[in-house]
């Protein structure tokens, strides 16, 4: 048991650190002194920076060499992430594309798709977004209603709506899960497509959250034409392809550093700044409980990494870390606002922003309830609840539901 680098890892870390020391001045400044403020400038700068990282081999570390990656292991990816964080420079802009969508294309895409899309994705020339969730298909992803109908010429016509889409406002392409056959059970009639966001009939609209900021988008598709060769993983295999993406999502989370900046040190520092609060037993108990759980997540990450190194794929239990992070951060927000009083809820307060952001995060990517179902069934082996939608053609489901209600 050991948390230190091997010689090779140390050498790689030194190499990454050296490059960052030399080039970090070229990185876009997003906070403090002379930070960029204009949204489009920020995006442009971050795309350029992703390009430089890719050139230097600091993006797509685990991608195969053939596709511009380094063909290295998860540990090197983490070392790379750690060094980027240490250098206090932004990471790649298109983490979703490079972390989840690219690997999906590598796994299921055609040679043409790989050669056409992977390069520009890796270098940030073309940003991608994930078009899976819908208003009526969030936790129950297989219930997607976005409909793609094949034309005589083999091309497709797509209509429907996606939601909770990150980066869609500046994305070039999206990986989209659509229903291509409604007369078979819902997991069977799905197909994965590559969709150009600039195609006629595609509308991207920002979706404002509690904070008032549009952290996600809604994307509408009105009779959008898609080429026949934009199917990924074969017609009718969309569910399997989607599962691959979700698996890479778990890997990305597993490799990610402690939960989105919701870590014990940050919260402890906030409380430490309040002389009375830091000596209050009630405040200390709350902080101690929250911090212990968040500390655990860091080491759960190292355990996941150990498993990844051994070629094991993280299972659904990795969702437990998300539950711990979100519930811990929510408790921390409550505590900090209690300690600072209403000022913690001021417009420009980082805490007000966090308090507003977390309720949405709790539901993002499947509600906590669904996560607990999945873990209870797949990890603990508990029996599933009776399903009323098993084996029923998708087209008949809604009527059945209404009957049941």
């Amino acid at each position, binding site marked *: 048991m050991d948390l230190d680098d091997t010689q090779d890892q140390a050498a790689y870390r030194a190499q990454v650190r050296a490059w960052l020391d030399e080039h970090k001045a070229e990185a876009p400044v997003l906070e403090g002194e002379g930070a960029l403020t204009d949204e489009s400038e920020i995006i442009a700068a971050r795309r350029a920076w992703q390009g430089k990282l890719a050139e230097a081999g600091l993006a797509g570390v685990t991608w195969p060499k053939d596709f511009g990656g380094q063909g290295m292991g998860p540990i090197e990816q983490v070392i790379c992430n750690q060094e980027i964080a240490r250098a206090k420079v932004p990471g790649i802009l298109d983490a979703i594309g490079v972390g989840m969508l690219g690997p999906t294309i590598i796994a299921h895409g055609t040679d043409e798709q790989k050669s056409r899309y992977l390069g520009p994705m890796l270098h940030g020339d073309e940003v991608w977004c994930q078009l899976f969730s819908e*208003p009526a298909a969030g936790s129950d992803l297989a219930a997607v209603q976005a409909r793609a109908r094949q034309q005589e010429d083999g091309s497709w016509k797509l209509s429907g709506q996606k939601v909770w889409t990150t980066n869609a406002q500046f994305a070039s392409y999206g990986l989209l899960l659509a229903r291509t056959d409604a007369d078979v059970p819902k997991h069977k009639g799905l197909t994965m497509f590559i969709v150009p966001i600039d195609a006629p009939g595609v509308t991207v609209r920002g979706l404002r959250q509690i904070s008032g900021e549009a952290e996600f988008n809604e994307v509408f598709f009105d009779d959008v034409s898609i080429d026949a060769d934009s199917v990924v993983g074969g017609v009718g295999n969309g569910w399997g392809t989607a599962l691959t993406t979700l698996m890479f999502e778990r890997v990305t989370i597993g490799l990610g550093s402690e939960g989105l900046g919701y870590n014990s040190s940050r919260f402890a520092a906030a409380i430490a700044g*309040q002389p009375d609060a830091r000596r209050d037993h009630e405040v200390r108990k709350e902080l101690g409980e929250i911090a212990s759980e968040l500390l655990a997540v860091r080491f759960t990450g190292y355990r996941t990494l150990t498993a990844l190194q051994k070629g094991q794929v993280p299972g659904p239990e990795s969702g437990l870390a998300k539950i711990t992070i979100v519930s811990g951060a929510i408790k921390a927000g*409550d505590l900090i606002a209690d300690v600072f009083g209403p000022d913690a809820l001021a417009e420009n307060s980082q805490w007000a922003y966090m308090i507003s952001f977390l309720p*949405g995060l709790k539901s993002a990517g499947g509600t906590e309830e669904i996560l607990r179902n999945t873990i209870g069934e797949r990890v603990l082996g508990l029996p599933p609840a009776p*399903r009323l939608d098993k084996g029923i053609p998708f087209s008949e489901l809604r009527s059945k539901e209404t009957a049941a209600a």
Partner: protein
Amino acid sequence: MNLSLSDEQEFLREAARGALSRFKTLEADREALDGNPEALPDLWATAKEAGWPGLLIDEQHGGAGLDAFDAMLVLGECGRVIAPIALLGHLPATAILNDAAAGASLLEPLATGERRAAYLPVSPPDDLVENWTAEPRSGITRAAAPVLSGSGEDARVSGEIAFVPDAPGADLLVGVALLDGKPVGIAVEADASGVTIEPTSRYDASRSLGHVTLAEAPALVLDAPAEALASAWHLAQALIAAESLGSVETALDVSVEYAKERHTFGRAIGSYQAVKHSLTEVLRQLDNGRSLLYYAGWARRGAPDEFPLAASAARSVAGRALDNAARTMISVHGGIGATWEHDAPLYFRRAQLSRRLLGGTAGATDRVAGELMAQADAA
């Protein structure tokens, strides 16, 4: 033994619900959050029509001569629709003046609503804190209460009280100041010299707040016993508790309706235990809170010694109930419940701010423990 509403009380509540239903308060609240505070309706006119400003003022001075529980019923209706109405500040102020028999000239315009008062929250001592303390600008340490000097015509008050509900636009400020360490009731004209009211808002645009600074401001010294001054604090606790539980009612109703309609995996989500049990938990807290509102409503006159306990317990339960109801409302609605256009965030914002005003839910909870241990010592 009768813990139910009288016909008059039923009527008072229905009338309030009807009067407030004429306004799109939630839409206005959202627009105000978006930077247009002028979108908020002027509900004071409605309050005047309904006679709410005089609820706690004796009939002889143009009031309705009703008691805390009636006021709590009205606040509950305000909470249901998050109405931006200045009663939380006005009512405790009028309670002090009425108990002090402040006289017709002062009471009548407040009873009609022609003038509006705001209560300066100063909390009475408890078993741990022997001083009267004021709302602080920040942090968990309470601030010193304002201090009174001189007497009669020359009485002057100095001090600061932060986050005073409904202070902006109030005509009269009523509260407590210390004279040689003893609590004295005071009334200060908002436009008097030395009075500064810094309007402020935090997270919940429907709640008007102000930081009040008094610098040698001329004060009318009230002939109010310390009990009446303490009682006003506890009344404010009971009122915000009632208001919070009104918000819980709406949050629960809306969530239950959605849980019946929304389907996932072929079933209405309300048929899943996770949703069903969390909504039942909101009901449990709401029901406990309601019971304590009866306790507080009865105790203010029926058992004044227990009013601090009753009002604090109601605030404690109601505060946690609203916290949980608002979060449950969001999560039952899934992702959409956390979007700007949805109403759930408005109840969430209300919960976040209310929890930290008027000594906070935590302060009320602490007082419950203190009161009960004092009872135990006495027994």
